[in-house]
């Protein structure tokens, strides 16, 4: 059931803290790739969507009374067919939807048939 949990271990084997991986859906439209991530109980100010060096990172901090509390994080590499500059993110009901547009050449285009 639980989301995959990455425990960070310090040098003496002690588990430091767990970073949870949120459940995500990824789907593709003609114009963009959309990542939808479950981040239940995250307040908007604790949610971070960042792009750095073609790497998309979605992270947040869950409150203490959530069944899984602590840090949530998921990261993706963006291929060069995606436009990292024009990313849009929307958060509602504990779900964040991040839309990454495809570059012009990668979008589906209808080819006119000459007859």
């Amino acid at each position, binding site marked *: *059931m*639980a989301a*995959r949990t990455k425990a960070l271990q310090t040098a003496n084997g002690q588990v430091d803290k767990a970073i949870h991986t949120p*459940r*995500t*859906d*990824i*789907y*593709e*439209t003609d114009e963009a*790739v959309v*990542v*939808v991530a*479950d*981040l*239940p*109980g*995250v*307040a908007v100010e604790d949610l971070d969507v960042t792009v750095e*060096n*073609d*790497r*998309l990172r979605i992270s947040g901090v869950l*409150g203490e*009374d*959530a*069944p*899984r509390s602590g840090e949530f994080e998921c*990261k*993706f*590499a*963006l*291929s060069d*067919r*995606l436009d990292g500059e024009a990313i849009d993110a929307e958060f*509602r*009901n*504990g*779900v964040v939807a991040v839309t*990454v547009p*495809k570059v012009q050449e*990668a979008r589906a285009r209808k080819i006119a048939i000459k007859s």
Partner: protein
Amino acid sequence: MLPTNYLPTLFRSTPRSLSTFPFTGFGLPESEQIPRSFFGVGDYPALNVRTDADGTVVTAELPGFGAAEIDISVEGSTLTISGSRAADESREGETYQRRERWIGRFSRSLTLPRDADAGKVEAGLKSGLLTISLPAAEEAKPKKIAVKAAA
């Protein structure tokens, strides 16, 4: 920091399968594997249950659900949380590369450590986190027994 090629890449030129957990649908292509439990009963959603002498507080992770899509029922000492969410119809024409979020019906029951006063149960939903407070019924609260000193 992991090098970029260890991360799942969005929209690669050659698609590569990413594992999803948990999933059903062995033998189906990656995009057809959807998390769901058999018979709609299982361990979704994740719950936290805290009890003290005054009652129980249950929190459940239900991201993406509206209040109208969730049913809560209390019967004596059993709490049942159920509901359903349809797959997004507008996505029908689009391709999924990964599908981990819950789709369909869910139902989860638990036995409360203390019988609840059904008239005083309250539930709130915020940012996908459902909080249910179940004050204990009077007869279910612990009673202090006076200790009489023997003569």
